[in-house]
């Protein structure tokens, strides 16, 4: 498993002043996957990306990309040769034009793909003489993505690539990413608040909360393991605690008890039947529900 892990952090901790942005994070991404990183604001998503790129040094723990130590200066430059980044703000050089920044990036990345550059520049309708300062948010996102996609990188780190985009632009970005991953075999890590987007294109997710990964794994596996069991009782739902492993949360509301399980429903239903419910319902859960309940629990 470790051999094909393109990113791997072990007990990674990053403290800024008195704030623990990342707290013992164990996070890994297999090569060739599209990994969605979810979490509330301040959960540590951006900090993790920064540490992987050598923008911030770990306080403790290790972070490896391509098997190289992200905290080492020389290794970090090598990592960045094979990796590209789009920041949340899509922050680029306002003093340059579109054409100038493309030429600039082409000169800096050793594996620049001129063939992709042609294709994307026309597809994105970006005018080479346009000043970056005057680009709309959508155009700026497209430009940032163009720079990342043409860099010849094996790994793309994208911080909220679809934030602030209208639905059509949003879908365009997803199409781009899926196509790029399919054709170039690149690994994509994207942090996002758009859970539906992640469910659509990611095959792996990690949910971060307070600097730690509370849920991590293949998305299909998570979808199969997580389920909601709803029990309806004749009288008020019993206060008895349930001991089946993998229970994420229990909510009691009058005569109804709802349990979120991360380990399937069979054992849970068996234990629950001992409480004599009048109805037992097992339903799949959406990523949104998993997110909301695993993140709330940690507080």
């Amino acid at each position: 498993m470790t051999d094909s892990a393109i990113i791997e952090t072990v007990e990674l901790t990053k403290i800024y002043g008195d704030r623990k942005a990342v707290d013992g994070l164990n996070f890994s991404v297999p090569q060739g996957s599209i990994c969605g990183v979810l979490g509330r604001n301040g959960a540590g998503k951006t900090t993790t990306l920064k540490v992987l790129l050598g923008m911030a040094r770990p306080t403790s723990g290790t972070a490896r990309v391509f098997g190289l130590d992200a905290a080492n200066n020389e290794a970090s430059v090598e990592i960045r040769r094979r990796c590209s980044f789009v920041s949340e703000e899509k922050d680029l050089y306002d003093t340059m034009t579109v054409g100038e920044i493309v030429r600039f990036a082409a000169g800096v990345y050793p594996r620049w793909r001129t063939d992709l550059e042609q294709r994307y520049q026309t597809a994105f309708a970006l005018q080479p003489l346009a000043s970056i300062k005057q680009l709309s948010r959508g155009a700026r996102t497209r430009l940032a993505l163009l720079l990342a996609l043409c860099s010849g990188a094996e790994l793309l780190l994208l911080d909220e690539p679809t934030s602030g985009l209208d639905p059509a632009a949003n879908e365009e970005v997803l199409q781009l990413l899926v196509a790029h991953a399919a054709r170039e075999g690149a690994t994509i890590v994207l942090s996002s608040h758009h859970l539906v987007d992640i469910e659509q294109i990611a095959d792996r997710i990690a949910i971060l909360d307070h600097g730690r990964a509370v849920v991590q794994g293949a998305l299909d596996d998570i979808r199969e393991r997580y389920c909601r069991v709803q029990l309806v009782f004749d009288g008020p739902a019993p206060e008895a605690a349930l001991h089946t492993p993998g229970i994420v949360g229990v909510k009691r509301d009058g005569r109804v008890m709802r349990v979120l399980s991360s380990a399937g429903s069979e054992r849970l239903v068996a234990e629950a039947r001992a409480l004599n419910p009048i109805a037992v319902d097992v339903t799949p859960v959406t990523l949104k529900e998993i997110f909301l309940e695993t993140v709330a629990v940690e507080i």
Partner: protein
Amino acid sequence: MLIKPNPSSGVPIYLQLMEQVKHAIETGALRPGEQLPGIRPLAEELVINVNTVAKAYRELEHEGVVELRHGAGAFVSARAHGTKAADKFRTARPVAAAAIAKLRAQGLTDEEIRRLFEAELAAHARVGGQGD
């Protein structure tokens, strides 16, 4: 031909794709020996992960529904699952019709009947294959 899967239904996308392919075979939209869309073009068209499409095709091959020919693509299995499945459906329909008529007679609405079946399916579908 294949419609966009619903990412937030809670059902894994690869399962949805498999269901769609099987359904297409049952209704005759895909005939035995016919080629399925390529993994990459399909992934790009539906805007879903290419690994997900690959997984769906692999599972379909595992179930004998399609054949993966190296270098050529995926083809509907010539073992005429289509007609078998069509038979299966033909004998199953009266059973379902009887059950629905009975439940309606008991006073359940169609929506309630549908949820009842889904709950029963979900409860029993998890057997064998879940981690502890």
